[in-house]
Protein backbone atom coordinates (compact mmCIF):
# COMPACT_ATOMS: atom_id res chain seq x y z
CA UNK A 1 0.00 0.00 0.00
CA UNK A 2 2.77 2.37 0.95
CA UNK A 3 4.79 1.57 -2.17
CA UNK A 4 1.65 1.91 -4.25
CA UNK A 5 0.81 5.35 -2.95
CA UNK A 6 4.40 6.47 -3.51
CA UNK A 7 4.35 5.25 -7.09
CA UNK A 8 1.01 6.94 -7.54
CA UNK A 9 2.38 10.20 -6.19
CA UNK A 10 5.45 10.06 -8.42
CA UNK A 11 3.96 9.13 -11.73
CA UNK A 12 0.35 10.37 -11.51
CA UNK A 13 0.87 13.29 -13.88
CA UNK A 14 3.05 11.26 -16.26
CA UNK A 15 0.43 8.54 -16.34
CA UNK A 16 -2.34 11.03 -17.00
CA UNK A 17 -0.35 12.67 -19.79
CA UNK A 18 0.34 9.38 -21.57
CA UNK A 19 -3.18 8.03 -21.03
CA UNK A 20 -4.81 11.18 -22.39
CA UNK A 21 -2.38 11.25 -25.32
CA UNK A 22 -3.40 7.70 -26.27
CA UNK A 23 -7.12 8.42 -25.81
CA UNK A 24 -6.92 11.59 -27.87
CA UNK A 25 -4.88 9.90 -30.63
CA UNK A 26 -7.64 7.34 -30.98
CA UNK A 27 -10.70 9.53 -30.66
CA UNK A 28 -9.69 12.93 -32.01
CA UNK A 29 -9.27 13.07 -35.76
CA UNK A 30 -5.99 14.50 -37.03
CA UNK A 31 -4.67 14.90 -33.49
CA UNK A 32 -1.44 13.12 -34.39
CA UNK A 33 -0.59 15.26 -37.43
CA UNK A 34 2.71 17.14 -37.20
CA UNK A 35 0.98 20.47 -37.81
CA UNK A 36 -1.41 19.85 -34.99
CA UNK A 37 1.33 18.76 -32.61
CA UNK A 38 3.21 21.99 -33.40
CA UNK A 39 0.00 23.88 -32.79
CA UNK A 40 -0.28 22.13 -29.45
CA UNK A 41 3.24 23.24 -28.52
CA UNK A 42 2.38 26.84 -29.44
CA UNK A 43 -0.77 26.61 -27.32
CA UNK A 44 1.26 25.40 -24.36
CA UNK A 45 3.82 28.22 -24.52
CA UNK A 46 1.84 31.15 -23.08
CA UNK A 47 0.33 28.92 -20.41
CA UNK A 48 3.74 27.59 -19.47
CA UNK A 49 5.46 30.97 -19.46
CA UNK A 50 2.90 32.57 -17.15
CA UNK A 51 3.03 29.36 -15.12
CA UNK A 52 6.83 29.76 -14.72
CA UNK A 53 6.23 33.20 -13.22
CA UNK A 54 3.68 31.84 -10.78
CA UNK A 55 5.94 28.90 -9.94
CA UNK A 56 8.79 31.26 -8.99
CA UNK A 57 6.50 33.13 -6.62
CA UNK A 58 5.23 29.84 -5.19
CA UNK A 59 8.81 28.60 -4.71
CA UNK A 60 9.30 31.61 -2.44
CA UNK A 61 6.25 30.50 -0.46
CA UNK A 62 3.78 33.12 -1.67
CA UNK A 63 1.15 33.22 -4.37
CA UNK A 64 0.20 35.84 -6.91
CA UNK A 65 -3.16 35.91 -8.63
CA UNK A 66 -2.85 39.48 -9.83
CA UNK A 67 -1.82 38.17 -13.25
CA UNK A 68 -5.50 37.83 -14.11
CA UNK A 69 -5.70 41.61 -13.78
CA UNK A 70 -2.26 42.62 -14.94
CA UNK A 71 -2.18 40.62 -18.19
CA UNK A 72 -5.17 42.37 -19.82
CA UNK A 73 -3.97 45.75 -18.51
CA UNK A 74 -0.43 45.28 -19.81
CA UNK A 75 -1.79 43.87 -23.06
CA UNK A 76 -4.00 46.93 -23.53
CA UNK A 77 -1.06 49.25 -22.86
CA UNK A 78 1.11 47.28 -25.31
CA UNK A 79 -1.55 47.37 -28.03
CA UNK A 80 -2.20 51.07 -27.44
CA UNK A 81 1.51 51.87 -27.68
CA UNK A 82 1.96 49.83 -30.86
CA UNK A 83 -1.08 51.37 -32.52
CA UNK A 84 0.52 54.78 -31.93
CA UNK A 85 3.58 53.56 -33.90
CA UNK A 86 5.89 53.34 -30.91
CA UNK A 87 8.93 51.15 -31.49
CA UNK A 88 8.81 47.52 -30.36
CA UNK A 89 11.69 47.89 -27.94
CA UNK A 90 10.19 50.86 -26.11
CA UNK A 91 6.75 49.23 -25.88
CA UNK A 92 8.19 46.02 -24.49
CA UNK A 93 10.27 47.92 -21.94
CA UNK A 94 7.18 49.94 -20.92
CA UNK A 95 5.08 46.81 -20.43
CA UNK A 96 7.75 45.00 -18.44
CA UNK A 97 8.18 48.17 -16.38
CA UNK A 98 4.47 48.17 -15.55
CA UNK A 99 4.69 44.51 -14.60
CA UNK A 100 7.65 45.17 -12.31
CA UNK A 101 5.87 48.14 -10.74
CA UNK A 102 2.73 46.10 -9.95
CA UNK A 103 4.86 43.31 -8.50
CA UNK A 104 6.87 45.76 -6.45
CA UNK A 105 3.67 47.12 -4.87
CA UNK A 106 2.35 43.60 -4.18
CA UNK A 107 5.66 42.38 -2.79
CA UNK A 108 6.01 45.36 -0.47
CA UNK A 109 2.45 44.89 0.79
CA UNK A 110 3.11 41.21 1.43
CA UNK A 111 6.57 41.46 2.96
CA UNK A 112 6.45 44.77 4.85
CA UNK A 113 2.91 44.59 6.21
CA UNK A 114 2.77 40.80 6.54
CA UNK A 115 -0.41 40.53 4.49
CA UNK A 116 -1.71 37.21 3.26
CA UNK A 117 -0.65 37.02 -0.37
CA UNK A 118 -3.76 35.12 -1.47
CA UNK A 119 -6.17 37.85 -0.49
CA UNK A 120 -3.84 40.75 -1.30
CA UNK A 121 -3.30 39.60 -4.85
CA UNK A 122 -7.01 38.93 -5.33
CA UNK A 123 -7.66 42.52 -4.27
CA UNK A 124 -4.93 43.64 -6.67
CA UNK A 125 -6.56 41.59 -9.42
CA UNK A 126 -9.92 43.32 -8.88
CA UNK A 127 -8.24 46.71 -8.75
CA UNK A 128 -6.30 46.11 -11.99
CA UNK A 129 -9.41 44.79 -13.73
CA UNK A 130 -11.21 47.97 -12.70
CA UNK A 131 -8.36 50.12 -14.00
CA UNK A 132 -8.37 48.16 -17.26
CA UNK A 133 -12.11 48.74 -17.60
CA UNK A 134 -11.81 52.48 -17.06
CA UNK A 135 -8.85 52.80 -19.44
CA UNK A 136 -10.33 50.84 -22.32
CA UNK A 137 -14.03 51.37 -21.66
CA UNK A 138 -14.46 47.60 -21.73
CA UNK A 139 -13.50 47.38 -25.40
CA UNK A 140 -11.01 45.07 -27.08
CA UNK A 141 -8.02 46.78 -28.69
CA UNK A 142 -7.17 45.18 -32.01
CA UNK A 143 -3.96 45.62 -33.95
CA UNK A 144 -3.63 45.70 -37.72
CA UNK A 145 -1.18 43.39 -39.48
CA UNK A 146 1.31 46.18 -40.24
CA UNK A 147 1.37 47.36 -36.63
CA UNK A 148 2.39 43.99 -35.25
CA UNK A 149 4.71 41.60 -37.05
CA UNK A 150 3.23 38.29 -35.99
CA UNK A 151 5.51 36.39 -38.37
CA UNK A 152 8.48 37.48 -36.29
CA UNK A 153 7.15 35.67 -33.23
CA UNK A 154 5.18 32.81 -34.71
CA UNK A 155 7.20 32.14 -37.88
CA UNK A 156 9.06 28.87 -38.22
CA UNK A 157 12.74 28.14 -37.77
CA UNK A 158 13.11 24.67 -39.23
CA UNK A 159 10.05 22.74 -38.11
CA UNK A 160 9.65 24.72 -34.89
CA UNK A 161 7.85 28.04 -34.48
CA UNK A 162 10.09 30.72 -32.96
CA UNK A 163 7.89 31.05 -29.89
CA UNK A 164 8.43 27.38 -29.02
CA UNK A 165 12.19 27.82 -29.24
CA UNK A 166 11.90 30.91 -27.02
CA UNK A 167 9.78 28.88 -24.59
CA UNK A 168 12.34 26.09 -24.40
CA UNK A 169 15.23 28.51 -23.91
CA UNK A 170 13.32 30.29 -21.15
CA UNK A 171 12.51 26.91 -19.61
CA UNK A 172 16.17 25.87 -19.54
CA UNK A 173 17.32 29.19 -18.06
CA UNK A 174 14.64 29.28 -15.37
CA UNK A 175 15.15 25.58 -14.62
CA UNK A 176 18.89 26.04 -14.07
CA UNK A 177 18.36 29.15 -11.93
CA UNK A 178 15.73 27.51 -9.75
CA UNK A 179 17.37 24.11 -9.26
CA UNK A 180 21.13 24.53 -9.68
CA UNK A 181 22.01 28.03 -8.50
CA UNK A 182 22.62 29.47 -5.07
CA UNK A 183 19.84 31.97 -5.64
CA UNK A 184 17.33 29.22 -6.44
CA UNK A 185 18.36 27.22 -3.40
CA UNK A 186 17.94 30.25 -1.15
CA UNK A 187 14.60 31.05 -2.73
CA UNK A 188 13.43 27.55 -1.91
CA UNK A 189 14.74 27.84 1.63
CA UNK A 190 12.83 31.10 2.10
CA UNK A 191 9.72 29.40 0.78
CA UNK A 192 9.93 26.40 3.07
CA UNK A 193 10.97 28.09 6.28
CA UNK A 194 11.41 31.87 6.45
CA UNK A 195 12.30 31.80 10.15
CA UNK A 196 15.30 29.49 9.84
CA UNK A 197 16.51 31.35 6.75
CA UNK A 198 16.44 34.55 8.76
CA UNK A 199 18.35 32.79 11.52
CA UNK A 200 20.97 31.62 9.06
CA UNK A 201 21.60 35.16 7.87
CA UNK A 202 19.46 35.63 4.79
CA UNK A 203 16.81 38.30 4.52
CA UNK A 204 13.56 36.57 3.49
CA UNK A 205 12.00 39.91 2.49
CA UNK A 206 14.64 40.51 -0.17
CA UNK A 207 14.24 37.05 -1.66
CA UNK A 208 10.44 37.22 -1.66
CA UNK A 209 10.59 40.62 -3.35
CA UNK A 210 12.97 39.17 -5.95
CA UNK A 211 10.59 36.29 -6.61
CA UNK A 212 7.66 38.68 -7.05
CA UNK A 213 9.70 40.86 -9.42
CA UNK A 214 10.78 37.87 -11.52
CA UNK A 215 7.15 36.74 -11.58
CA UNK A 216 5.94 40.19 -12.59
CA UNK A 217 8.43 40.43 -15.45
CA UNK A 218 7.45 36.98 -16.71
CA UNK A 219 3.73 37.87 -16.49
CA UNK A 220 4.49 40.93 -18.62
CA UNK A 221 6.24 38.74 -21.21
CA UNK A 222 3.20 36.45 -21.15
CA UNK A 223 0.96 39.46 -21.69
CA UNK A 224 3.01 40.58 -24.72
CA UNK A 225 2.84 37.09 -26.22
CA UNK A 226 -0.92 36.86 -25.59
CA UNK A 227 -1.43 40.19 -27.32
CA UNK A 228 0.72 39.08 -30.24
CA UNK A 229 -1.09 35.76 -30.54
CA UNK A 230 -4.57 37.31 -30.51
CA UNK A 231 -3.48 40.31 -32.66
CA UNK A 232 -4.87 42.57 -29.98
CA UNK A 233 -5.65 42.95 -26.31
CA UNK A 234 -8.84 41.10 -25.46
CA UNK A 235 -11.05 41.59 -22.43
CA UNK A 236 -11.03 37.90 -21.62
CA UNK A 237 -7.27 37.40 -21.84
CA UNK A 238 -6.90 37.52 -18.06
CA UNK A 239 -9.86 35.52 -16.88
CA UNK A 240 -9.17 32.89 -19.55
CA UNK A 241 -5.69 32.40 -18.12
CA UNK A 242 -6.64 32.44 -14.43
CA UNK A 243 -7.70 28.82 -14.13
CA UNK A 244 -5.26 27.09 -16.52
CA UNK A 245 -2.23 28.84 -15.02
CA UNK A 246 -3.28 27.93 -11.48
CA UNK A 247 -3.80 24.37 -12.68
CA UNK A 248 -0.39 24.30 -14.33
CA UNK A 249 1.38 25.60 -11.24
CA UNK A 250 -0.41 23.30 -8.79
CA UNK A 251 -0.33 20.16 -10.95
CA UNK A 252 3.34 20.91 -11.57
CA UNK A 253 3.93 20.45 -7.84
CA UNK A 254 3.05 16.78 -8.11
CA UNK A 255 5.74 16.16 -10.75
CA UNK A 256 7.88 13.17 -9.71
CA UNK A 257 6.33 13.38 -6.26
CA UNK A 258 8.36 16.51 -5.47
CA UNK A 259 5.52 18.10 -3.57
CA UNK A 260 6.94 21.56 -4.13
CA UNK A 261 6.51 24.00 -7.02
CA UNK A 262 9.10 23.39 -9.71
CA UNK A 263 9.81 24.46 -13.27
CA UNK A 264 9.89 21.06 -15.09
CA UNK A 265 6.53 20.20 -13.54
CA UNK A 266 5.05 23.39 -14.93
CA UNK A 267 6.49 22.57 -18.36
CA UNK A 268 4.90 19.12 -18.33
CA UNK A 269 1.58 20.34 -16.97
CA UNK A 270 1.41 23.05 -19.64
CA UNK A 271 1.71 20.31 -22.27
CA UNK A 272 -1.05 18.34 -20.52
CA UNK A 273 -3.44 21.29 -20.49
CA UNK A 274 -2.66 22.38 -24.02
CA UNK A 275 -3.34 18.82 -25.13
CA UNK A 276 -6.76 18.83 -23.50
CA UNK A 277 -7.57 22.22 -24.98
CA UNK A 278 -6.47 21.13 -28.43
CA UNK A 279 -8.14 17.72 -28.45
CA UNK A 280 -11.43 19.01 -27.04
CA UNK A 281 -11.65 21.43 -29.92
CA UNK A 282 -10.81 18.68 -32.41
CA UNK A 283 -13.45 16.44 -30.85
CA UNK A 284 -15.94 19.31 -31.20
CA UNK A 285 -16.75 19.47 -27.52
CA UNK A 286 -18.16 22.82 -26.38
CA UNK A 287 -15.53 25.38 -25.42
CA UNK A 288 -16.77 25.82 -21.83
CA UNK A 289 -16.03 22.17 -21.11
CA UNK A 290 -12.28 22.88 -21.25
CA UNK A 291 -12.14 24.78 -17.94
CA UNK A 292 -14.35 22.11 -16.40
CA UNK A 293 -11.88 19.43 -17.49
CA UNK A 294 -9.07 21.58 -16.11
CA UNK A 295 -10.83 21.72 -12.77
CA UNK A 296 -11.37 17.96 -12.62
CA UNK A 297 -7.74 17.29 -13.55
CA UNK A 298 -6.48 19.81 -11.01
CA UNK A 299 -8.49 18.27 -8.18
CA UNK A 300 -7.70 14.68 -9.11
CA UNK A 301 -3.98 15.32 -9.58
CA UNK A 302 -3.74 16.99 -6.20
CA UNK A 303 -5.85 14.28 -4.60
CA UNK A 304 -3.51 11.60 -5.99
CA UNK A 305 -0.44 13.52 -4.88
CA UNK A 306 -1.91 14.02 -1.40
CA UNK A 307 -2.92 10.39 -1.16
CA UNK A 308 -1.45 9.52 2.23
CA UNK A 309 -1.64 12.84 4.09
CA UNK A 310 -4.99 14.38 4.71
CA UNK A 311 -4.28 17.40 6.86
CA UNK A 312 -6.78 20.21 6.48
CA UNK A 313 -5.11 23.23 4.92
CA UNK A 314 -6.29 26.50 6.42
CA UNK A 315 -5.91 30.02 5.13
CA UNK A 316 -5.40 32.56 7.88
CA UNK A 317 -5.80 36.29 7.71
Amino acid at each position, binding site marked *: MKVNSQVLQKYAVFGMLILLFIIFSIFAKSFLLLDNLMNLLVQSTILGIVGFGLAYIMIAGEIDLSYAGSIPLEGAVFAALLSRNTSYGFSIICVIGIGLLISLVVSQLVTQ*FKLVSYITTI*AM*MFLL*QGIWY*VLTGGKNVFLAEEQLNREWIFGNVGPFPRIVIFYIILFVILFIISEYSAFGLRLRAVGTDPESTRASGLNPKVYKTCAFLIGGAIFAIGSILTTARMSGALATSGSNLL*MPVMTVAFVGQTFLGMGRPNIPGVFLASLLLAMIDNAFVLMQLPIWSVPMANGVILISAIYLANFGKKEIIQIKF
Partner: protein
Amino acid sequence: METSNMKITNQAKSTLAGKKAHINYGLISGFIVFALVFTIFTIKAPSFLSKTNLVRNLAMPASISAVIAMGMTIVMTGGGIDLSIANIAGLAGLAAAASSAQFDLPFPLMLLTALIIGGLIGAINGGLVAYAGISPFVVTLSVVFLAHGLQYLISLVSVSGTYLMLPRNVSNLGVNPLFQIGICLAVFLILYIFLDHSMYGRFIKAVGMNLNASNFSGIPYRFYTWLTYVICGFCCALTGIMLTANEGLARVGSGESYQIDGFLLPILGKTIFGRFSVQGTIFSALFIYMIINGMFILGVTPEYVKIIKGGLLLGIILVSGIQKVVRGEN
Protein backbone atom coordinates in the same frame (compact mmCIF):
# COMPACT_ATOMS: atom_id res chain seq x y z
CA MET B 1 -6.22 34.63 15.44
CA GLU B 2 -4.12 35.89 18.32
CA THR B 3 -6.22 39.00 18.46
CA SER B 4 -9.46 37.16 18.93
CA ASN B 5 -7.89 35.09 21.67
CA MET B 6 -6.66 38.23 23.31
CA LYS B 7 -10.03 39.82 22.91
CA ILE B 8 -11.81 36.91 24.55
CA THR B 9 -9.47 36.95 27.53
CA ASN B 10 -9.84 40.71 27.71
CA GLN B 11 -13.60 40.40 27.67
CA ALA B 12 -13.41 37.82 30.42
CA LYS B 13 -11.19 40.14 32.45
CA SER B 14 -13.49 43.09 31.96
CA THR B 15 -16.54 41.14 33.07
CA LEU B 16 -14.60 39.92 36.08
CA ALA B 17 -13.45 43.38 37.03
CA GLY B 18 -16.83 44.82 36.21
CA LYS B 19 -15.43 47.62 34.07
CA LYS B 20 -14.44 48.14 30.48
CA ALA B 21 -10.78 47.26 30.29
CA HIS B 22 -10.46 46.87 26.56
CA ILE B 23 -11.60 49.55 24.14
CA ASN B 24 -12.08 48.45 20.59
CA TYR B 25 -10.70 51.41 18.66
CA GLY B 26 -11.52 49.77 15.35
CA LEU B 27 -15.21 49.63 16.23
CA ILE B 28 -15.35 53.23 17.42
CA SER B 29 -13.50 54.59 14.41
CA GLY B 30 -15.63 52.43 12.12
CA PHE B 31 -18.83 53.95 13.47
CA ILE B 32 -17.37 57.46 13.40
CA VAL B 33 -16.37 57.08 9.75
CA PHE B 34 -19.80 55.64 8.96
CA ALA B 35 -21.54 58.60 10.60
CA LEU B 36 -19.19 61.03 8.89
CA VAL B 37 -19.77 59.59 5.42
CA PHE B 38 -23.51 59.49 6.06
CA THR B 39 -23.54 63.16 7.05
CA ILE B 40 -21.46 64.19 4.06
CA PHE B 41 -23.79 62.41 1.65
CA THR B 42 -26.84 63.84 3.38
CA ILE B 43 -25.52 67.35 2.87
CA LYS B 44 -23.86 66.94 -0.54
CA ALA B 45 -26.05 64.46 -2.38
CA PRO B 46 -29.63 65.55 -3.02
CA SER B 47 -32.33 62.97 -2.29
CA PHE B 48 -29.83 60.67 -0.58
CA LEU B 49 -32.02 60.70 2.50
CA SER B 50 -35.28 59.98 0.65
CA LYS B 51 -37.03 56.78 1.64
CA THR B 52 -37.01 55.32 -1.89
CA ASN B 53 -33.28 55.78 -2.19
CA LEU B 54 -32.45 54.41 1.23
CA VAL B 55 -34.67 51.35 0.88
CA ARG B 56 -34.52 50.50 -2.80
CA ASN B 57 -31.07 51.65 -3.83
CA LEU B 58 -29.16 51.13 -0.62
CA ALA B 59 -30.69 48.50 1.64
CA MET B 60 -31.88 46.13 -1.07
CA PRO B 61 -28.58 45.60 -2.93
CA ALA B 62 -26.78 45.65 0.40
CA SER B 63 -28.98 42.85 1.72
CA ILE B 64 -28.45 40.72 -1.40
CA SER B 65 -24.69 40.97 -1.08
CA ALA B 66 -24.81 40.66 2.72
CA VAL B 67 -26.39 37.19 2.47
CA ILE B 68 -23.59 35.86 0.25
CA ALA B 69 -20.99 37.59 2.41
CA MET B 70 -22.43 36.08 5.60
CA GLY B 71 -21.90 32.64 4.11
CA MET B 72 -18.31 33.61 3.37
CA THR B 73 -17.98 34.91 6.94
CA ILE B 74 -18.83 31.47 8.30
CA VAL B 75 -16.24 29.83 6.03
CA MET B 76 -13.59 32.37 6.97
CA THR B 77 -14.38 31.89 10.67
CA GLY B 78 -13.63 28.20 10.19
CA GLY B 79 -10.27 29.04 8.63
CA GLY B 80 -11.21 28.42 5.02
CA ILE B 81 -11.92 30.43 1.92
CA ASP B 82 -14.49 29.96 -0.80
CA LEU B 83 -13.84 31.52 -4.21
CA SER B 84 -16.84 29.86 -5.80
CA ILE B 85 -19.58 31.77 -3.94
CA ALA B 86 -20.66 33.93 -6.86
CA ASN B 87 -20.76 31.01 -9.25
CA ILE B 88 -22.71 28.80 -6.84
CA ALA B 89 -25.22 31.65 -6.53
CA GLY B 90 -25.48 31.97 -10.30
CA LEU B 91 -25.82 28.21 -10.77
CA ALA B 92 -28.46 27.82 -8.06
CA GLY B 93 -30.49 30.73 -9.37
CA LEU B 94 -30.33 29.55 -12.97
CA ALA B 95 -31.09 25.92 -12.11
CA ALA B 96 -34.04 26.90 -9.93
CA ALA B 97 -35.44 29.18 -12.63
CA ALA B 98 -34.91 26.58 -15.33
CA SER B 99 -36.56 23.80 -13.34
CA SER B 100 -39.48 26.02 -12.39
CA ALA B 101 -39.96 26.90 -16.05
CA GLN B 102 -39.63 23.28 -17.15
CA PHE B 103 -41.88 21.67 -14.54
CA ASP B 104 -44.04 24.65 -13.59
CA LEU B 105 -42.92 24.61 -9.97
CA PRO B 106 -44.38 27.07 -7.46
CA PHE B 107 -42.00 29.52 -5.76
CA PRO B 108 -41.37 27.53 -2.53
CA LEU B 109 -40.30 24.48 -4.54
CA MET B 110 -38.07 26.69 -6.67
CA LEU B 111 -36.44 27.97 -3.51
CA LEU B 112 -35.98 24.39 -2.33
CA THR B 113 -34.31 23.40 -5.63
CA ALA B 114 -31.86 26.26 -5.30
CA LEU B 115 -31.10 25.37 -1.68
CA ILE B 116 -30.49 21.71 -2.56
CA ILE B 117 -28.11 22.65 -5.37
CA GLY B 118 -26.27 25.21 -3.25
CA GLY B 119 -25.99 22.76 -0.38
CA LEU B 120 -24.75 20.00 -2.66
CA ILE B 121 -21.99 22.10 -4.17
CA GLY B 122 -21.09 23.36 -0.72
CA ALA B 123 -20.90 19.76 0.45
CA ILE B 124 -18.58 18.86 -2.44
CA ASN B 125 -16.37 21.86 -1.64
CA GLY B 126 -16.31 21.02 2.03
CA GLY B 127 -15.77 17.32 1.48
CA LEU B 128 -12.73 17.90 -0.70
CA VAL B 129 -11.30 20.43 1.74
CA ALA B 130 -12.07 18.65 4.99
CA TYR B 131 -11.85 14.96 4.14
CA ALA B 132 -9.43 14.86 1.20
CA GLY B 133 -7.08 17.54 2.56
CA ILE B 134 -6.85 19.67 -0.58
CA SER B 135 -6.18 23.39 -0.28
CA PRO B 136 -9.53 25.24 -0.12
CA PHE B 137 -8.15 27.69 -2.59
CA VAL B 138 -7.56 25.07 -5.27
CA VAL B 139 -10.83 23.25 -4.64
CA THR B 140 -13.06 26.27 -4.79
CA LEU B 141 -11.28 27.75 -7.79
CA SER B 142 -11.94 24.52 -9.67
CA VAL B 143 -15.55 24.60 -8.55
CA VAL B 144 -15.81 28.13 -9.99
CA PHE B 145 -15.26 26.71 -13.45
CA LEU B 146 -17.32 23.57 -12.87
CA ALA B 147 -20.26 25.71 -11.78
CA HIS B 148 -19.74 28.04 -14.70
CA GLY B 149 -19.72 25.15 -17.15
CA LEU B 150 -22.83 23.66 -15.55
CA GLN B 151 -24.58 26.99 -16.03
CA TYR B 152 -23.89 26.80 -19.76
CA LEU B 153 -25.07 23.19 -19.80
CA ILE B 154 -28.35 24.09 -18.10
CA SER B 155 -28.92 27.04 -20.37
CA LEU B 156 -28.25 24.81 -23.40
CA VAL B 157 -30.76 22.24 -22.23
CA SER B 158 -33.58 24.40 -20.97
CA VAL B 159 -33.18 28.00 -22.07
CA SER B 160 -34.00 28.63 -25.70
CA GLY B 161 -32.57 32.14 -25.92
CA THR B 162 -29.82 33.90 -24.02
CA TYR B 163 -31.91 34.20 -20.88
CA LEU B 164 -35.05 32.90 -19.24
CA MET B 165 -37.84 35.20 -18.11
CA LEU B 166 -39.29 34.45 -14.71
CA PRO B 167 -43.03 34.30 -13.96
CA ARG B 168 -44.58 37.63 -13.04
CA ASN B 169 -45.27 36.75 -9.39
CA VAL B 170 -41.62 35.82 -8.76
CA SER B 171 -40.20 38.96 -10.34
CA ASN B 172 -42.74 41.03 -8.41
CA LEU B 173 -41.46 39.40 -5.25
CA GLY B 174 -37.89 40.14 -6.31
CA VAL B 175 -38.38 43.90 -6.50
CA ASN B 176 -40.24 43.94 -3.20
CA PRO B 177 -37.87 45.39 -0.57
CA LEU B 178 -39.70 43.57 2.22
CA PHE B 179 -38.86 40.19 0.66
CA GLN B 180 -35.17 40.93 0.09
CA ILE B 181 -34.49 42.68 3.38
CA GLY B 182 -36.64 40.10 5.20
CA ILE B 183 -34.56 37.18 3.90
CA CYS B 184 -31.39 39.02 4.80
CA LEU B 185 -32.59 39.69 8.35
CA ALA B 186 -33.75 36.10 8.79
CA VAL B 187 -30.37 34.75 7.65
CA PHE B 188 -28.65 37.28 9.89
CA LEU B 189 -30.64 36.22 12.97
CA ILE B 190 -30.14 32.50 12.36
CA LEU B 191 -26.41 32.82 11.69
CA TYR B 192 -25.90 35.28 14.57
CA ILE B 193 -27.44 32.85 17.05
CA PHE B 194 -25.63 29.95 15.42
CA LEU B 195 -22.21 31.57 15.41
CA ASP B 196 -22.20 33.62 18.59
CA HIS B 197 -24.65 31.93 20.92
CA SER B 198 -24.45 28.23 20.25
CA MET B 199 -22.03 25.42 20.91
CA TYR B 200 -21.61 24.74 17.20
CA GLY B 201 -20.51 28.25 16.43
CA ARG B 202 -18.00 28.05 19.27
CA PHE B 203 -16.65 24.83 17.77
CA ILE B 204 -16.31 26.46 14.36
CA LYS B 205 -14.41 29.37 15.89
CA ALA B 206 -12.17 26.93 17.75
CA VAL B 207 -11.42 25.05 14.53
CA GLY B 208 -10.62 28.31 12.80
CA MET B 209 -8.33 29.49 15.57
CA ASN B 210 -6.37 26.35 16.20
CA LEU B 211 -6.95 23.14 14.33
CA ASN B 212 -4.69 20.99 16.48
CA ALA B 213 -6.01 22.25 19.79
CA SER B 214 -9.59 21.66 18.72
CA ASN B 215 -8.64 18.18 17.55
CA PHE B 216 -7.11 17.40 20.93
CA SER B 217 -10.17 18.71 22.76
CA GLY B 218 -12.31 16.21 20.90
CA ILE B 219 -14.07 18.48 18.44
CA PRO B 220 -14.81 16.63 15.19
CA TYR B 221 -12.86 19.27 13.28
CA ARG B 222 -13.29 17.70 9.86
CA PHE B 223 -17.06 17.75 10.23
CA TYR B 224 -17.14 21.38 11.35
CA THR B 225 -14.88 22.46 8.49
CA TRP B 226 -17.22 20.63 6.12
CA LEU B 227 -20.24 22.25 7.77
CA THR B 228 -18.95 25.78 7.14
CA TYR B 229 -18.86 25.14 3.40
CA VAL B 230 -22.35 23.65 3.41
CA ILE B 231 -23.77 26.67 5.24
CA CYS B 232 -21.97 28.90 2.77
CA GLY B 233 -23.54 26.92 -0.07
CA PHE B 234 -27.01 27.50 1.36
CA CYS B 235 -26.34 31.23 1.72
CA CYS B 236 -25.11 31.39 -1.87
CA ALA B 237 -28.24 29.60 -3.08
CA LEU B 238 -30.42 32.13 -1.24
CA THR B 239 -28.48 34.96 -2.87
CA GLY B 240 -28.95 33.28 -6.21
CA ILE B 241 -32.72 33.26 -5.74
CA MET B 242 -32.78 36.84 -4.46
CA LEU B 243 -30.69 38.01 -7.38
CA THR B 244 -32.54 36.07 -10.06
CA ALA B 245 -35.89 37.26 -8.72
CA ASN B 246 -34.61 40.81 -8.54
CA GLU B 247 -33.33 40.78 -12.13
CA GLY B 248 -36.53 39.06 -13.26
CA LEU B 249 -34.59 36.76 -15.55
CA ALA B 250 -32.14 33.91 -15.28
CA ARG B 251 -28.93 34.06 -17.28
CA VAL B 252 -25.46 32.57 -17.34
CA GLY B 253 -22.97 34.44 -15.19
CA SER B 254 -25.50 36.23 -13.03
CA GLY B 255 -24.06 37.21 -9.67
CA GLU B 256 -20.44 37.30 -10.74
CA SER B 257 -20.13 40.89 -9.60
CA TYR B 258 -20.79 39.69 -6.06
CA GLN B 259 -17.50 37.78 -5.99
CA ILE B 260 -15.59 40.78 -4.73
CA ASP B 261 -18.21 41.52 -2.05
CA GLY B 262 -17.64 38.06 -0.63
CA PHE B 263 -14.08 39.04 0.23
CA LEU B 264 -14.57 42.69 0.94
CA LEU B 265 -17.42 42.57 3.45
CA PRO B 266 -16.18 39.89 5.91
CA ILE B 267 -12.66 41.31 5.94
CA LEU B 268 -13.93 44.87 6.44
CA GLY B 269 -16.14 43.51 9.22
CA LYS B 270 -13.15 41.82 10.79
CA THR B 271 -11.07 44.96 10.62
CA ILE B 272 -13.80 46.99 12.28
CA PHE B 273 -15.14 44.47 14.82
CA GLY B 274 -11.87 42.72 15.56
CA ARG B 275 -13.02 39.26 14.50
CA PHE B 276 -15.12 37.60 11.82
CA SER B 277 -18.77 38.12 12.73
CA VAL B 278 -22.09 38.32 10.91
CA GLN B 279 -22.92 41.65 12.52
CA GLY B 280 -19.65 43.01 11.18
CA THR B 281 -20.52 41.75 7.72
CA ILE B 282 -23.96 43.40 7.80
CA PHE B 283 -22.43 46.65 9.01
CA SER B 284 -19.84 46.67 6.25
CA ALA B 285 -22.47 45.78 3.63
CA LEU B 286 -24.41 48.90 4.61
CA PHE B 287 -21.20 50.90 4.72
CA ILE B 288 -19.92 49.87 1.28
CA TYR B 289 -23.29 50.21 -0.43
CA MET B 290 -23.80 53.60 1.17
CA ILE B 291 -20.49 54.77 -0.31
CA ILE B 292 -21.36 53.40 -3.75
CA ASN B 293 -24.89 54.77 -3.65
CA GLY B 294 -23.73 58.21 -2.56
CA MET B 295 -21.08 58.28 -5.26
CA PHE B 296 -23.64 57.38 -7.90
CA ILE B 297 -25.80 60.30 -6.81
CA LEU B 298 -22.75 62.57 -6.90
CA GLY B 299 -22.20 61.51 -10.52
CA VAL B 300 -19.53 58.80 -10.48
CA THR B 301 -20.02 56.40 -13.39
CA PRO B 302 -20.50 52.67 -12.72
CA GLU B 303 -17.16 51.81 -14.36
CA TYR B 304 -15.40 53.06 -11.27
CA VAL B 305 -17.25 50.73 -8.90
CA LYS B 306 -14.73 47.92 -9.39
CA ILE B 307 -11.83 50.29 -8.80
CA ILE B 308 -13.52 51.65 -5.68
CA LYS B 309 -14.20 48.17 -4.32
CA GLY B 310 -10.79 46.79 -5.25
CA GLY B 311 -9.05 49.81 -3.80
CA LEU B 312 -11.13 49.64 -0.62
CA LEU B 313 -10.33 45.92 -0.26
CA LEU B 314 -6.62 46.58 -0.70
CA GLY B 315 -6.80 49.50 1.73
CA ILE B 316 -8.64 47.48 4.35
CA ILE B 317 -6.19 44.61 4.11
CA LEU B 318 -3.41 47.18 4.43
CA VAL B 319 -5.03 48.62 7.58
CA SER B 320 -5.31 45.17 9.13
CA GLY B 321 -1.68 44.54 8.18
CA ILE B 322 -0.63 47.78 9.87
CA GLN B 323 -2.65 46.76 12.94
CA LYS B 324 -0.68 43.52 12.99
CA VAL B 325 2.68 45.28 12.63
CA VAL B 326 1.80 47.80 15.34
CA ARG B 327 0.77 45.04 17.71
CA GLY B 328 4.03 43.30 16.90
CA GLU B 329 2.62 39.95 15.91
CA ASN B 330 4.80 37.50 14.05
